[in-house]
């Protein structure tokens, strides 16, 4: 019983993290049909920026809770700057080209941004434990966990609701839905698709950076850690169905829970099982478990 609860709890925390990281990837794919490898770099940049600023703030004697404001600020800053640079500087010239070439271009950008991190922040790891230390730990049903980790679940829920409301209840969300549905028709109706692309990519980048920024306090932020995140979030997005937001929730929950189960019961299968699930889904349901609805065009 205790193990089951531990697995569930750890799985939920990990799923929440995966959901936040993968959401941006799936939104970008849904709207722009771009498989964005650079997402791993957004994540790493978010983490580095947050860890660096939290360290500065701590040295300047700011209170520990300021860390949370800094995390949000870092995500927005990184998303705005890098998202805009990449979309305006590179991707906008590629929209008429092959999907696969765009993947390669984002892969190239990812490699460049990874090294720019080293140039800007150096090779030494950063620690930004203050927000985590502030919240301490809590006992739930006999097991002790960091409160900070548990707040991830809350953050994921908030992000999911914000995303849902943003897509369904705002004018921008409706514009984005229209572009997802039929790009050419939206353009014909006078919709500025270029701007929708720009906004989507920037918002997607912000979510990627938010994932990194929020995780930063729980780890030592060191070079090269965006690499694993890319394939993990690919797995999430593929399992749920590329381009689908509910799919990202399902994908994150599947990967998170399966991995937690493996970590506690069969640790040697921890990585294997995630990709086995990914491959199985791709083989039997290439469009994912929750494929976005497609119109049949004549």
């Amino acid at each position: 019983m205790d193990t089951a609860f531990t697995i569930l709890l750890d799985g939920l925390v990990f799923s929440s993290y995966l959901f936040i990281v993968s959401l941006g990837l799936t939104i970008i794919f849904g709207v722009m049909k771009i498989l964005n490898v650079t997402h791993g770099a957004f994540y790493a940049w978010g983490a580095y920026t947050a860890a660096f600023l939290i360290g500065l703030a701590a040295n300047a004697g700011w209170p520990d809770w300021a860390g949370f404001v800094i995390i949000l600020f870092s995500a927005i800053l990184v998303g705005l700057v890098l998202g805009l640079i990449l979309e305006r500087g590179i991707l906008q010239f590629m929209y008429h080209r092959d999907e696969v070439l765009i993947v390669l271009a984002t892969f190239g950008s990812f490699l460049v941004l990874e090294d720019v991190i080293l140039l800007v922040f150096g090779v030494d790891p950063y620690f930004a434990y203050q927000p985590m230390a502030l919240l301490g730990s809590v006992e739930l049903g006999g097991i002790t966990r960091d409160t900070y980790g548990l707040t991830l679940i809350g953050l994921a829920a908030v992000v999911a609701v914000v995303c849902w409301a943003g897509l369904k209840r705002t004018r921008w969300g409706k514009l984005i839905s229209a572009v997802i549905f039929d790009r050419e028709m939206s353009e014909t109706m006078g919709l500025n698709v270029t701007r929708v692309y720009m906004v989507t990519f920037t918002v997607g980048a912000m979510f990627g950076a938010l994932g990194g920024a929020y995780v930063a306090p729980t780890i030592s932020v060191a070079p090269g850690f965006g690499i694993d995140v890319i394939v993990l979030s690919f797995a999430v997005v593929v399992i749920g169905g590329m381009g689908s937001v509910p799919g990202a929730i399902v994908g994150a929950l599947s990967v998170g829970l399966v991995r937690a189960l493996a970590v506690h019961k069969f640790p040697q299968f921890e990585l294997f099982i995630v990709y086995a699930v990914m491959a199985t889904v791709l083989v039997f349901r290439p469009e994912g478990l929750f494929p976005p609805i497609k119109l049949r065009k004549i």
Partner: protein
Amino acid sequence: MTLLRDRTVQGLTIALGVMLIVSALVPSWIVNQLLFAFARAIAVIGLMVLWRTRLVSFGHALYFGLGAYTVAMLGRFTGITDAFVLIGAAAALSTLLGFLLGFILRRYRDIYFAMLNLAFSMILYGILVKTELLGSTDGFSVAAPTFVGIAFEDAQDGKLALLFVLLVASWAIAVAVQGYLRSTLGRLTTAIRDNEIRVEYLGYSAEHAIHIKYVLSTLLAGVGGGFMALALGQVDPDSMVNWTASGELVFVTILSGPGSVAAPFIGSFVFEILRTYAAEWMPHAWQMIVGGTLLVIIFFMPGGMWALAMRLVGRGKGHGAEGMGR
């Protein structure tokens, strides 16, 4: 273009002769560079064959790593050290796996093809990283090979012998792939890229052609990985099986360009040299160089280094056009 006589095979044979002489004369560090470059180039030829159909695999490190680990494990657990047997085993295993997975993968295109390959390769990575017996993330070392019973006392002589074997193997593979590309089946490569439905209407099965292409690429990746294990004397999951290793292979493919079977050898050698000097002069800018080069090629030189070389030699017309299209 087809009216021109194809002189690729003659060119390759001359190149082989030159390379055999050159490698006997150059200092040992260049022998090592050549070993790495040619081992990787063999795998890249396979990816180039796929790339001509506009298929990109982000998971060929699966076969590259499988080849490398086959060689390493045979040497470690059975004591077999004969290079020919080891490479043959690597080729056989990776081809078998490629043949089986090919039944699934031949139905996939575009990013789904890339992703499913990625997923399969990460499964192997996940297993290797967690297997203590195989050294987990550290990997383990590979014994120096023998050649039909001949063992070399001096490590450097052994490397040179390996390079000779590798050069001859590269020549044979390049000639065979050239023959394949000029056959009807090989010519379907670009036809499938341009319009798969029309190929079907001609009476050919695109899936079947892609399956053959895929098996060929896995065979070459396995052989390349096997040679790489012998050349490095070491195998480990992160540099051979992780998705970044697949990315490296894809990068060298794009860098080389799809213009000729000789292109991967040039591209791969440039890659090794670049890496050596980058590690020395700008240790933290290696990925930036790779990424930046990738972007430059995608935007400005769709034919890769081969097209660039041809333009310098003055035979540019028509060759670069086989590049990436729009």
